[in-house]
């Protein structure tokens, strides 16, 4: 079982916080990886918030392939952060030779393009890079998006942090949101693309559980959007559905839960919004999920969200103070990073509940 977590704060914080949140939850587990998505960056990247940031790991040949592609497609590099960690021997990390965290300027003819066009360009570029790198197994591209940085690696999270110098709070790498996971999935092959969190066009998501409707979801999602690819993990289904409901269908957020875990027909029958709920359930029956799950998502507008499966078969807790709130599979993580919070205010969402934290740290809760 994975452990997942997320921190949201009014003031930028350092990724080591995310490690402190996760490590206590690692008890008895295999420490097989570390992955995080940072959004709303401060520190080194603060000046380039509107410039798409490419996060990838690759071989030397892969790096060249990426450079060539970006150049050929008129992306101009404007800033790069090279992690200068301690590459000491004995670290448990399956490191790749190159890690690229690089801001680009949009191609000339996209400077005045609208939001939708830019979003499409960024996604298509990432998909193209993925394809190029995949060919001879030359690397992995995680995100290409303004103000979003993704880091994923296989190994012991402590050592990965050492390798990337994440223990040193030097102010280089800071963000107001981090979604994090400290364990590779256990059900599938250990591959970097199968590690949560997953990212697509501003939507980040990680999940803890097993989606037993994976095959149904996958078969349906494949034809819904060209960005719904990979499917290395059954948790990608959650991200793609989130993206589909909010970004493609443009439905309000509360309907996401109605899509993934619809109410039983008997209950729908007694609801005032019966017509809508029935229509949603029947049209998107192939996006319903089953099995034990908790998800944490981060949206383009900076809202953070968590909810569970319809039987609440996986735990999650939300807690914090006026400046920082965190979501975690287990409360022990919260106790480490936010020991002085008012624990009586911790929220344990139930199977019908959705909890959203806004950038102002307002907590919204509602029942499906």
């Amino acid at each position, binding site marked *: 079982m994975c452990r997942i977590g997320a921190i949201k704060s009014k003031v930028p914080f350092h990724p080591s916080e995310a490690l402190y949140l996760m490590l206590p939850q690692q008890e008895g587990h295999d420490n097989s990886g570390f992955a995080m998505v940072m959004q709303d960056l401060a520190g080194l990247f603060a000046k380039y918030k509107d410039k798409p940031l490419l996060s990838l790991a690759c071989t030397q040949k892969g790096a060249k392939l990426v450079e060539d592609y970006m150049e050929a497609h008129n992306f101009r590099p404007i800033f790069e952060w090279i992690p200068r960690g301690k590459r000491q021997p004995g670290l448990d990390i399956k490191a790749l030779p190159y890690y690229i965290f690089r801001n680009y300027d949009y191609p000339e003819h996209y400077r005045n393009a609208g939001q939708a066009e830019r979003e499409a360009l960024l996604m298509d570029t990432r998909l193209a890079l993925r394809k190029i790198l995949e060919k001879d197994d030359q690397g992995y591209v995680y995100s290409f998006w303004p103000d979003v940085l993704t880091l994923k690696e296989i190994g012991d999270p402590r050592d990965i942090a050492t390798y990337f110098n994440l223990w040193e709070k030097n102010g280089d790498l800071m963000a107001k949101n981090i979604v994090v996971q400290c364990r590779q999935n*256990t*059900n599938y092959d250990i591959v970097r693309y199968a590690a949560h969190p997953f990212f697509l066009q501003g939507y980040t998501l990680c999940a803890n*559980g*097993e989606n*037993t*409707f*994976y*095959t*149904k979801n996958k*078969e*349906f999602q*494949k*034809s*819904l959007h060209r960005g719904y690819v990979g499917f290395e993990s059954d948790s990608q289904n959650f991200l793609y559905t989130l993206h*589909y409901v909010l970004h*493609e*269908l*443009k*439905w*309000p957020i*509360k*309907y996401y839960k109605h899509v993934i875990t*619809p109410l*039983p*027909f008997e209950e729908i029958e007694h609801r005032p*919004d019966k*017509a*809508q709920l*029935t*229509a*949603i359930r*029947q*049209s*998107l*029956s*192939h996006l*319903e999920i*089953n*099995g*034990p799950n908790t998800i944490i998502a981060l949206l383009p507008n900076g809202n953070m969200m968590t909810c569970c499966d*319809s*039987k609440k*078969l996986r735990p999650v807790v939300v807690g914090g103070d006026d400046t920082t709130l965190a979501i975690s599979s287990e409360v022990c993580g919260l106790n480490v990073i936010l020991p002085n919070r008012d624990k009586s205010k911790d929220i344990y969402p139930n199977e019908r509940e959705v909890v959203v934290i806004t950038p102002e740290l307002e907590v919204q809760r509602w029942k499906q």
Partner: protein
Amino acid sequence: METVKTQDVTFNDLNWKIEYDADRCTMCGSCVAVCTFGAIEVVAERRSKTVSKGHQPDPTQQHQAVPVIKQKNGAANACVGCGICEKICPNRAIHPVRNTDSRGTLVSRSGSPIKRGGRTNLNADRTLDKIVVGRISQMTDPSLDSERHTFDILAPFGRVLPATELPFQSDGSELSLTGKTPPVNWIYPVIFSDMSIGALSTRAWEAVSLATAYLNEKHHIPVRMSSGEGGMPVKLMESEYLKYTILQIASGHFGWNRIIKAMPRMKVDPAGILIKIGQGAKPGDGGLLPAAKVAEHVQAIRGVPKADLMSPPNHQGLYSIEESVQKMFLSMNAAFKFRVPVAIKCAASATSVSVYNNLLRDPYKICGGFFIDGIQGGTGAANEVSLDHTGHHVVSKMRDCYLAAVKQGRQGQIPLWAGGGLGMTGNAAADAFKMICLGANGVFIGKLLIQLCGCVGNEHGRCNSCSTGKCPTGICTQDPRLVKRLDVDKAAQNIVEYTLALDSELRKLMAPIGNSSLPVGRSDALVTTDNAVANKLGIQYVC
């Protein structure tokens, strides 16, 4: 000695031979009285007997004329193996035996094709029994509890729009509907399939209809029953119970004048309309109700005189799928003012995927279900050549249709319903569940229901005499004396009890794979030890 004429048809040329034990027989005559086919008679036979009457043994041989039960010669009175004589005999003196050296297929074709009812006798192989539910929730995800958890066991009947076409308007936090969507009824994933009054006796039809109403009203299991071609009693059409019925229109359009006349007085809408294009048991063969079965009440319901009633193999004027769609659109949808979903039933065929694609792409989006009927389905009357030698297996065909929809991202838009031999071994829940995992939204069952009413026919040539008007169980005949053999209440009760068991069995299959709603298209839950089946259906091969 008589000269043997080898062309004479004698009982040992026929499919069934009667075994009779004169020593056990008390000459009650029940078997002869009960045999509706006139296959046996009482005759006197000369027997040589050794008799001893005195105090001391004093055996003498005598010739006596003794009454015995004897099977008749000739194909016209052939025993069909129904076993009713055996059922009634108090002394177990008589029973039919399958004649492994039968010449039945040769001696029964006297100038015209063999006609019979029932089902195919040649294609009874079972793909579904080679498949098991092999993806059981263990460590990674918990099984559910079939007794404790709630399960949503419902399937759509009606056209489902893609989400992008739902007439929704968003104010940022709520969606509201700004237009109409096609009607969709969520019903039990097992439909009691279309068997007409005419093919069935009124009593048998009544038993199915009683069971349907009882399951809905008392057990809240929303089972729907299809009327079959030929309409239904006006009283029922004008009652509340119409909502449990799917009205069928087939190529003969029998009964529709009465349905249309009853419309203004209908209190509720029917559950749906099913347009029958073809039937899996006898694709391309049209409907057939022999005059022998066109009793007075059948004439009344259908509005016809006593005569052979043939439904043409096609709807008149129907020359393309597009036209059938139009036909549905214009007549059926409009008839009920677009409140009642309209579905279509076709015999499974090598062309099913094309038909399904056409329906999926129909711009009016009015087809509310695609019913595929396989070769193992049943019928009241058909030419044996159609029953045994035409048709298509339903399992892979339904799967092909589902995958065709998957390819286009249209799965679920026109619900897939499969039938034709499902439940033929008595295990309808397992059959339904596997079909659902392969992509069906639900299944329809017919033969199983009449078997629950007492039908003794099977896939090995037993009985299958539904076309003769002599159904020995009173199910498939209009002869009032035979119909009395059927206890309506008991038959309905059998159907109810079977359905309750089926419902629990479905839960028992959903719980271990950890699903609380139907796993439509969850092919990953299935495995097979047959490599060919695995390849064809795209499921995991195991050994």
